[in-house]
């Protein structure tokens, strides 16, 4: 079947629904946010419509650059950890029996039903000195006395990886299921070990999927604001935490909007760069 180019105006009709949804749920809210980011903050009140750059000027400081840098680094680390765990896991999952796959999938989906608050509090209990996992290690004789593992950077990273991993696996699963098993069989026949076959055949064949997954997890992790608060110290607070502080606690919508717009722009730039680099490498190969 050959797809014909649209001839009449009505041929574009199927586009209308997604276009309206995108406008209503993305373009309008985002446009409002951009507009608010230029409004004049009324200290001790709310804001008045205006066109001022002061909100962006306040953001342009070493302090906020450091917070932004930390947020991006954290999101990149979460993405890398998730993919490093998710790819081998999903690969092994697709080799299992259909029954076992269903059980695993249900278990993973059930993690998605947990809210960020529950995940945060559960991990803060697991990492606590009084009731945490170190008590188990003490009971097993592996540690002298129980210690608190939270607040701290490893605690934040662990919980965020825990939260994002099910998404990672759900995104990777379709591509890995469709992966032609004869590829690895051929590699094995030619004498490659399973590990070698995985890294030299499976991973390169999935390069595009892995890149897309990295980007998705990165963006997902960038929006996290509860876990860094519950499990981290102030220096582990992400830009999203400070945006929440401004919007909710200081009622400074213009400044919060300016920070959010900046965060979106930086994210878009990074994603574009990654995609561009990926395409270039593919063209070179």
């Amino acid at each position, binding site marked *: 079947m050959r797809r014909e180019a649209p001839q009449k105006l009505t041929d574009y009709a199927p586009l209308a629904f997604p276009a309206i949804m995108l406008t209503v749920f993305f373009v309008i*809210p985002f446009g409002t946010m951009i507009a608010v980011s230029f409004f004049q903050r009324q200290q001790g009140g709310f804001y008045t419509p205006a066109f001022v750059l002061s909100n962006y000027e306040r953001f342009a400081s070493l302090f906020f650059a450091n917070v932004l840098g930390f947020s991006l680094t954290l999101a990149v680390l979460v993405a890398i950890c998730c993919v490093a765990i998710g790819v081998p896991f999903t690969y092994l999952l697709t080799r299992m029996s259909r029954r076992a796959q269903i059980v695993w999938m249900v278990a993973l989906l059930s993690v998605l039903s947990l809210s960020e608050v529950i995940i945060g509090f559960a991990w803060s209990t697991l990492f606590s000195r009084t009731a945490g996992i170190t008590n188990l290690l003490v009971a097993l004789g592996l540690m002298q006395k129980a210690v608190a593992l939270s*607040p701290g950077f490893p605690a934040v990273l662990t919980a965020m990886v825990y939260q994002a991993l099910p998404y990672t696996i759900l995104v990777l699963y379709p591509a890995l299921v469709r992966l032609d098993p004869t590829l690895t069989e051929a590699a094995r026949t030619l004498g490659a070990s399973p590990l070698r076959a995985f890294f030299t055949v499976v991973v390169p064949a999935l390069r595009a999927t892995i890149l897309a997954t990295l980007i998705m997890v990165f963006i997902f992790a960038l929006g996290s604001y509860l876990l860094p608060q519950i499990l981290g110290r102030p220096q582990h607070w992400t830009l999203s935490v400070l945006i929440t502080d401004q919007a909710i606690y200081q009622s400074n919508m213009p400044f919060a909007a300016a920070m959010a717009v900046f965060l979106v722009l930086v994210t878009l730039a990074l994603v574009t760069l990654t995609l561009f680099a990926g395409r270039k490498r593919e063209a070179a190969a």
Partner: protein
Amino acid sequence: MTKILNSPISRRAVLGGTAAAIGALSMPSILRAQDRSLKVGVYGGYFKDSFDKNIFPDFTAATGIAVESIAEPTGEAWLVQLEQAAKAGVAPADVSMMSQVAMLKGQSTDLWAPIDTSKIKNYDGLLGQFVNKYPDGRVAGIGAVAWYITLVTNTDVYPEAPDSWAALWDPANADKLGLLALVSNSFLLEVTAKTFMGGTGALDTEEGLNKAFEKLAEVKPNVRLWYRDEAQFEQALKSGEIPMGQYYHDVTGLAAADGHPVRSTFPKEGGIQDSGCWALSRASGKVEEAHVFIDYMSQPAIQATLSRKVGTAPTLKRDLLDLTAEEFASVSSDIDPIIPRYDLYQTKSDWLNQKWTEMIVG
């Protein structure tokens, strides 16, 4: 921002408003019978549970007005929601319990409907600090409850109660404190000024504020948790995970009564006295019911019940109340309290917030 726009409360209020409008067209008489209701915003958690149990059923029995209580988040989240909703002409709650800083901020946009004091029988019995007025003299809010933020400790970890806020600075307490994360709800600048600088008047000048920030920065190594969410610290305090900090006197008292190893101490410099007002959103159509409610809540008997059952300090003059000395001591103290400098959070809020965030994050 998106959280507020997508807030289920405002959406439900819009749907409810539409349903009510349709009802008004078809069955006006039945609507009036059901109309004797009031949505009241109360801080979520212990506070809301106590009001639901001890106060609201009696109010409905006495006045025939049904109360739908709504759990508000503390801080200014609720103010932002009320403000956004009022712009759209809806009120997620008719009457809300609002903090003093939130009252001042709401005043700047005329969010609060003026209260007719002739309808409040005990108006003259209210303590001065519990009548919140617009600059032109209109009454924006009437004291609802007052509470203290005090020095709290886990009794298992600290057999002896500390007697001064200076304990927060003690190097022996390294990594043991839980403090509120925002400059405008922790009031730690005032604590610093009262403890080390002779009083909160020292914060009048920028120089004084800078000095207070410098002194306060010395506390940082002792702080394990800067909390926004009360449940987070309360849990850790009960278990002894974070054995010392600042917390609400009333809630700590209730937790101790439940058998948890916690105590609240009024340091010799005084507890931090904060208070909340009942305020009526200008978008509310229940002006009449709201006045009945505020009048009811300002009765000596109800204020005494609040002190006994909820653990809050009364808003009326002490001689109007029948509280025993012991009952009074459990909710308040004779030690001169630290009164927060609300004016600073109005006039210098951005500067204070920036300085504060840089101090605790940096």
